[in-house]
């Protein structure tokens, strides 16, 4: 059935509603699989309560977590400069009707405008391509996980072992604060700013998508096994489920640099995507940016 495209602000409301109330299928599957393997009784209680909450949020149409976060938008394909204003309009509307918690404040005065807007908010990344569609993706990022973000400008001689050490320490030092088990987004290379952006973009990829780079894929798998052998467990209370996945993106960097960034997604890694063509809007919950 062909559905005529809705206005962009309404599409943004739909995206935020979907992201906040319905856990992406790949994340839900990973949680279920983890609950199947987990032996620690306390960890099983935590995972059971998480899955119970996910079901309730979806059936009641309520945000699964009270921290409805800061939404990060990615606009890809063809678009014009008016789309930013439409996204802001949609976010303001969504804050009232879903409702979302008004989270944005002035960084120093802490004044809260109450509508999730304000200078620089929300963050929108633009990726123009020659495609015939416009793809709007949103990642909903709570502060518990975002506050655990780390960037290291390693020495090139630290190599792949140094990268592993830094990623593992970042996740383990965070303990229960970022609401494990979640997804570990990693950026390797680029410049400092680009490296952190890649770590965050990695969280948009579905867990069952394959990293095209065999070296990165092996690194993802290695870190996944090692982190889940650490004993940190759900909510940092112990167990064998510390991460649901590790996702890595990389870029070339300066010959004197080895930047590494870690951006963790909590168990409620919330994402939604709308692909808009002339006569259709297709919704999904993950994207390769």
């Amino acid at each position, binding site marked *: 059935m062909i559905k005529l495209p809705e206005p962009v602000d309404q599409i943004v409301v739909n995206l935020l509603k979907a992201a906040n109330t319905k856990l992406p299928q790949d994340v839900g599957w990973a949680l279920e699989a983890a609950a199947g393997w987990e032996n620690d009784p306390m960890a099983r209680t935590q995972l059971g309560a998480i899955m119970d*909450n996910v079901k309730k*949020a979806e059936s009641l149409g309520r945000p699964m*977590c009270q921290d*409805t976060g800061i939404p990060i938008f990615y606009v890809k394909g063809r678009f014009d400069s008016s789309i930013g204003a439409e996204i802001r309009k949609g976010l303001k509307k969504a804050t009232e009707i879903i409702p979302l918690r*008004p989270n944005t*404040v002035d960084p120093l005065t*802490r004044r809260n405008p109450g509508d999730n807007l304000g200078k620089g908010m929300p963050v929108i990344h633009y990726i123009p391509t020659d495609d015939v569609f416009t793809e709007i993706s949103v990642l909903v990022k709570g502060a518990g996980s975002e506050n655990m973000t780390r960037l290291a400008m390693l020495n090139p001689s630290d190599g792949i072992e140094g990268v592993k050490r830094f990623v593992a320490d970042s996740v383990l030092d965070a303990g229960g604060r970022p609401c494990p088990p979640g997804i570990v987004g990693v950026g390797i290379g680029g410049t400092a700013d680009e490296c952190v952006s890649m770590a965050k973009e990695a969280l948009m990829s579905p867990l069952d998508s394959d990293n095209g780079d065999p070296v990165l894929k092996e690194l993802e798998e290695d870190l996944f096994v090692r982190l889940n052998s*650490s004993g940190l467990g759900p909510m*940092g209370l112990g167990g064998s489920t510390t991460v649901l996945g590790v996702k890595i993106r990389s870029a070339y960097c300066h010959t004197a640099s080895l930047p590494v960034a870690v951006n963790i997604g909590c168990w409620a890694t919330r994402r939604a995507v709308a692909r808009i063509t002339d006569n259709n809007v297709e919704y999904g919950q993950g994207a390769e940016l």
Partner: protein
Amino acid sequence: MIELRTPFGEDAVRKLKLGDTVYLTGDIITGRDGMHERAIENVRQNRPVPEGIEESVLYHCGPIVARDGNGWRVVAAGPTTSARMNSSEPEMIRKFRIRAIIGKGGMSAEVGEAMSETGCVYLAAVGGAAVSLAESIIGVRGPEWSDLGMAEAMWRFEVEAMGPLIVAMDSEGNSLYENVMSGLIRDI
């Protein structure tokens, strides 16, 4: 499984052991960074604070609350990261004899010390389980200090069988988080 009813005093707190699973019924209050700062500041300046903080159960939570007629309805209310309140919590516990803190991620050894001194426990709620936890809230009053905003204001909740909550820091200075962190396998 332990059913706990508020208000409770030091004796009840001292009986709780690390790893116990608790379901809580009764009145609790919410507070995060802003509420902690305001409460402590007021006490230092000899200004009054809202009633109900003394010997309370303090929930580290910034809920989503919607207007419902003349009252309020809690849409989602999971725990926030407790470590942000590490610096103000020892004073809160000592000044107000807080009996239990509900949060996620655990708190510092200094907070643990204040807890064992006055008789207080840390109850770990499941982070992000905001709908399930909101469902256990059967009444909501407030907010106090509404100028702090929806998330930071102090709300009063009446809860019924709120849980599962795990005793993750007991009143003898033991911490499940510390046990897990010190036993982590970090081999790479």
